[in-house]
């Protein structure tokens, strides 16, 4: 008898049994009554949109794309993807100037770094903030990440590229916009840790922004172009040179691995498994007995780990936290896994500011109550949000590893 053995629908939207646990886990639902929640916006809404595209609701833009609904779903429904795909398919609004500026992290970064001191100062001026608030609708309370005077790429070319040939093993580094334009120290830390572990670090051929902000701001064609370019570069590294690609931003890596095929329909099946976070790469080497990390004896810090939403979706927090727990002098605290509210460019928008801070409030309270030296997280936008909303500095786990690492001892241990 025909029992439809393989009835798996696109995005698994028919696998939804309406249990509604996704809506329970949605960080937006309790704070924004205009957002109908993931179940209704996702699988329920999809049926109505198939009946008549006019059922597309603009309120779908309130979705953070945090994917916590997908993590919660016991039926494997890609709820976040359904919502984002609906926005891609049905939204007819042309992106505003503000959205273009926020989305083009690459372009804006390239323009800003040569003038970094000026840009950083200007963005802190009250009149500038007032204008951005009223004209661009970027909330005046939002603190902008500052730009670096020198990009990671130019530092790398001047100071690191040459030495990388001295290693026997090699990886490519997808640094992302943040490490390149805002915080090159993260890239430097990655090079330090990988070099100590015996790996040469290389840049991809003309890396472009992963495009996550382009996707969430509706600039799909541009995102697809950049995505295809990136996957071609990654393919050259992985397939032609046998160099896996590692990153330090959970969102960039998540986008390269999952958003490309699911939302942009870019086929990455041949390289996907070899694109991962540096912490996962390192942990697995240690776990397989192929690597030892030796840490400084005098390192004493109390650090709490915040699980970024895309980290939760990847299921990879365990790698970062396990590495941090290996540092003998590190007093480790695990924060409750909850969204910080920033969701990339979402929290920058004036209309989302209240929701954004409301979502993060319980997390901020927990962080303040713990007496921490650092919060560790794999996501740069979580870092901005937590640093803006609490008194605790935020570090990428790779930077903490770099700080705690005894480089010489590590090199010796792996000889």
């Amino acid at each position, binding site marked *: 008898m*025909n029992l*439809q053995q393989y*009835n798996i629908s696109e995005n698994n939207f*028919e696998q939804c*049994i*309406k249990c509604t646990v996704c809506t329970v886990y949605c960080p937006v639902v309790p704070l924004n009554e205009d957002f109908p929640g993931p179940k209704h916006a996702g699988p329920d809404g999809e049926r109505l949109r*198939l*009946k008549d595209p006019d059922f597309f609701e603009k309120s779908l833009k309130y979705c953070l794309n945090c994917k916590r609904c997908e993590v919660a779903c016991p039926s494997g429904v890609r709820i976040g993807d359904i919502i984002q795909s609906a926005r891609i398919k049905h939204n007819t609004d042309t992106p505003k100037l503000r959205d273009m500026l926020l989305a083009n992290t690459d372009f804006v970064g390239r323009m800003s770094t040569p003038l970094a001191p000026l840009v950083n100062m200007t963005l802190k001026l009250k009149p500038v903030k007032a204008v951005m608030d009223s004209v661009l609708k970027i909330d005046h309370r939002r603190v902008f990440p500052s730009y670096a005077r020198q990009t990671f790429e130019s530092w790398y070319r001047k100071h690191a590229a040459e030495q990388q040939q001295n290693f026997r093993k090699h990886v490519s580094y997808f640094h992302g916009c943040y490490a390149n334009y805002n915080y090159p120290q993260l890239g430097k830390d990655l090079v330090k840790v990988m070099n100590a572990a015996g790996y040469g670090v290389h840049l991809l051929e003309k890396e472009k922004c992963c495009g996550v902000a382009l996707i969430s701001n509706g600039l799909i064609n541009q995102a697809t172009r950049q995505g295809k370019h990136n996957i071609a570069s990654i393919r050259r590294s992985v397939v032609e040179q046998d160099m896996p690609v590692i990153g330090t931003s959970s969102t960039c890596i998540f986008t390269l691995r999952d958003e490309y095929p699911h939302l942009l329909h870019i086929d990455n099946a041949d390289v996907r498994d070899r694109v991962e976070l540096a912490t996962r790469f390192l942990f697995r080497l240690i776990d397989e007995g192929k690597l030892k990390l030796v840490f400084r004896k005098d390192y004493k810090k109390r650090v709490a780990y915040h699980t970024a939403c895309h980290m939760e979706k990847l299921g990879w927090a365990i790698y970062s936290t396990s590495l941090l727990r290996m540092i003998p002098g590190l007093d480790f605290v695990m924060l409750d896994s909850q969204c910080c509210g920033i969701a990339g460019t979402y929290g920058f928008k004036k209309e989302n500011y209240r929701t954004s801070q409301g979502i993060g409030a319980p997390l901020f309270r927990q962080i303040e109550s713990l007496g921490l030296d650092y919060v560790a997280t794999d996501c740069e936008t979580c870092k901005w949000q937590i640093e803006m909303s609490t008194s605790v500095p935020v570090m990428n786990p790779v930077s903490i590893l770099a700080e705690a690492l005894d480089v010489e001892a590590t090199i010796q241990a792996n000889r």
Partner: protein
Amino acid sequence: MGKTGNGTEFDVIVIGGGATGAGTARDCAMRGLRVLLLERFDYTNGATGRNHGLLHSGARYAVNDGESAAECIRENRILRRIASHCVEENGGLFISLPEDDLSYQDKFVESCRKAGIEAEAIDPKEAIRLEPSVNPSLTGAVKVPDGSIDPFRLTIANILDARAHGAVTLTYQEVTGFIREQDRIVGVQTYNSKTKERTEFRAAIVVNASGIWGHHIAGLAGVTVNMYPAKGALLIFGHRVNNMVLNRCRKAADADILVPGDTITVIGTTSTRIPYEEIDHMHVTADEVDLLLTEGEKLAPALADTRILRAYAGVRPLVAADNDPTGRNISRGIVLLDHASRDGLEGFLTITGGKLVTYRLMAEWATDLVCKKLGVNAVCRTADEALPGSRLTKEEEKRYPVGNVYRAAESRHGELARQMDLHDAYDNSLVCECEGVSVGEANYALRALDATDLASLRRRTRIGMGTCQGELCACRAAGLLAKAHNCTEKAKHELVDFLNERWKGMSPVAWGESLRESQFSAWVYEGNCQLGNNKKEVKP
């Protein structure tokens, strides 16, 4: 006005609350007659509510029955006009697959043209562009003006208009016998299954419009109408797979029509002769499901991996031509029997056969005969006057504020959605999340559309027709029902009945997600709601 000499209250009694009965009640009322309509259960409970919901262009009949085809296309055009809120102008394709004889296509197109149906052979590539779900191995396609029609809305719209013209329409009134004076029927005896009351109603003419049950009704009146029950099973898929109606371009066969309607897609149908005794106990068999799926996948391969919500079956009211005791010359055309000339029984007519699409024409024929018998000179206006719900102009549609709750309500009820209370957050909250039915819409159906129980509320609004099949909405709807009737106990029993009825349709296709869904529903209602402590009440 009809002659009402011997104290009859009504000019005409119409038996049957399907499309034909409702249409006849409307037509009679619009011609100034005093009308009573009696329905044994709820409106649309019979074949009207158990078919494809296909707005036939007539193309399917063109080759074999040009007359029916011509009737279909005329009525198709009329319904687009008068019942726009029930109709989706989706268009249809008749596709040829490699196993089909492509030369049939020429004959088909020619026959369609003769019947007045616009049929245009198109390139298979164009067909795939128009309807991406179609089997890509098709070798030919013909575009025809098929569409979809919602029989529930259509029937209720007729009921509402009949009432607006003075008709009285009653549900749960089963006709148990006739009042006969010599060779004349002068009324009926009824039994109300809700109130357990027996009543007599008198009228100059009784119209038997009770579909397959017309066989039984005719028997009560002492005449014979030979009905040949043909069971047709159908499957409902979880979402719209296709946007155009898909047919096979060949001699009509089993499971070769795929109809998109509202949020779902329906494949059908099988055709099995069944004994008359079984017409109230339809079950879809495993073989039928198998056949429907296997054939359906040939029309749209996506059906192979699309979730099936439920299976159901209806009984076609086919009538054997008179003087044919073998039943071989079964007509699919309209059959109007004047029992005075046929059987010597005055005051009694039977209108049957036909199709959902020709319900209005059937009603017109029946009403013409009623008027002739009553000596009434009034012309039929049912083809010209739009039904309630279809009276919105495009301009008006645009002027009304639109949100998804109102949009969903208007897609089902047309301008009648404006009569709903949708003022505050509570009114706008959803009872049925799958179909987008609000509290305001459900309350409107309870108040104005004769929704007396959960099953009728479902037919009026689509509550419980979506993916979850009642899992989330049934208890909310029961709550509204309890409030409306001021009786919690009755609503609780209704809830159990409703869930069991939903399970009945799910059980033939209970695998995969449908099975998980039904199991989850059972947990919710047995575990959380403590419903059905007696295991027999809530299955599985």
